[in-house]
């Protein structure tokens, strides 16, 4: 039996865009245990809810995360709308769904690029990010922001997308679809990718369920769980089906994401085809009084916003449980037993977003 040593991984590390610290207990090159530490980027955004008007806070809720930003604002709006009994017009729901799927596409493409970068596959990294840029252009043209859209508000949306623009967006997606499929083929078939990720960091279905994995981490282990199946916003009318893969290794978590990009393109096309006419916002009168748990499926998994209000314009309590926070216990499980050199790739496969997890 060799001696155990502790190697610190992070908070600053080339593969980590954001600070998470892991103490890796090693025996030779093999990880025995990983001890995570978070708390490097706490911003106190939940506390800020007590100081801001509940309608203006949507803009702060959106800035909880820099990638899945739009979904945060929609989830917060959903919570407030349920408390106040506001019926959001169907057109607003559909447009919100379109933007949420666009953010999913850009988030997954960003992640696919980062993973390719972590593997040392620079060409694939650049390719994924170039495709992401096409998605961001459409987002900026419709909302005014590349990653922070700021276009959701309590009771509806701030900006409408004209029907001609919707048509242009679908045409644009159709034109980049072959490129997305080609990029998917590389992730599915390329030997470099398979060699690096197949059979690595395995999380079984039972472990994923017991440890509370969410999002692509759970779906990559064969758990059929996706909040979009509950049909919030317009998902109920779009015939949504979750994508799952059975093996629970890094490659399957990667394939869930690359398939979800194409599924998101389909969802946008269906949403545009079914787009109803009508107003885009409902007038909000009074202040919220009550509490509500709102759930949504972010690119990284299930996100929960808890809002408690007491009839004043400032909300009493806002609590966010983000997917990265829930995915840390499964990550610790995945890390036990792998080689030190594989740690960066495994850490990336849960798509850690620490800014989100600490708010």
């Amino acid at each position, binding site marked *: 039996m060799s001696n155990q040593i502790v190697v610190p991984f992070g908070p600053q590390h080339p593969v980590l865009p954001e600070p998470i610290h892991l103490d890796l207990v090693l025996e030779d090159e093999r990880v025995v245990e990983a001890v995570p530490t978070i708390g490097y980027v706490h911003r106190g955004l939940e506390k800020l809810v007590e100081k*801001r008007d509940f309608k203006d806070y949507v803009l702060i809720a959106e800035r909880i995360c820099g990638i899945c930003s739009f979904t945060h604002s929609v989830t917060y709006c959903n919570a407030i709308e349920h408390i106040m009994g506001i019926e959001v017009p169907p057109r607003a729901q559909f447009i919100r769904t379109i933007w949420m799927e666009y953010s999913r596409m850009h988030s997954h493409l960003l992640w696919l690029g980062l993973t390719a970068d972590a593997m040392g596959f620079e*060409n694939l990294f*650049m390719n994924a990010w170039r495709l992401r840029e096409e998605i961001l252009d459409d987002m900026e043209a419709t909302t005014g922001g590349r990653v922070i859209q*700021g276009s959701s508000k309590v009771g509806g949306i701030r900006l409408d997308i004209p029907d001609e623009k919707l048509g242009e967006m679908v045409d644009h997606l159709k034109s980049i679809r072959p490129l997305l499929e080609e990029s998917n083929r590389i992730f599915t078939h390329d030997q470099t990718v398979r060699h690096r990720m197949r059979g690595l960091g395995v999380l079984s279905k039972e472990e994923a369920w017991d440890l509370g994995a969410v999002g692509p981490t759970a779906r990559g282990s064969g758990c059929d769980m996706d909040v979009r199946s509950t049909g919030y916003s317009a998902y109920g009318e779009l015939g949504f089906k979750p994508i799952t893969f059975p093996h629970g290794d890094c490659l399957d978590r990667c394939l869930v994401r690359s398939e979800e990009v194409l599924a998101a393109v389909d969802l946008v096309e269906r949403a545009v085809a079914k787009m109803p006419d009508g107003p885009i916002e409902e007038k909000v009168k009074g202040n919220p009084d009550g509490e509500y748990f709102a759930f949504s499926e972010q690119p990284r998994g299930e996100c929960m916003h808890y809002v408690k209000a007491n009839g004043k314009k400032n909300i009493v309590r806002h609590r966010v449980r983000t997917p990265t926070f829930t995915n840390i216990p499964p990550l610790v499980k995945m890390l036990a037993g792998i080689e030190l050199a594989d740690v960066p790739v495994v850490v990336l496969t849960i798509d850690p977003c620490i800014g989100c997890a600490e708010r």
Partner: protein
Amino acid sequence: MPLFTMVKRALANVTGKPATLMYPATPAKQYDVSRGHIVIAIEDCIFCGNCQRHCVSQAIVVDREARTWEIDRLRCIICGVCAEVCPKDCIFIEPDYHPSSVGPVVELVQGPPAPPKVEKKAKTEE
């Protein structure tokens, strides 16, 4: 065979044009709705302070006495809430980005001296 899945794309990349723009030599892409920076038409401003109260990052300071409107460009997150709540619609979002800077950029906009008529109106409203 699966070894060379990327070759076609790699060759296209080598022979094709660069996908990136040489910013700032080439200007960044802009759209009509792009949120670049906030500007104010000070002659229409009534110095009500609504923008200051709603500003989520406390970037705006309005002084009713001195008739000034002040914005800290580095605090501003260009959410556009000031433009939305302005009763006179005199705050706009311009699509081009504010030039980058190394220190705090606080812009003070001095309003025109108040005509006596406007002052009277404000008093009656209160």
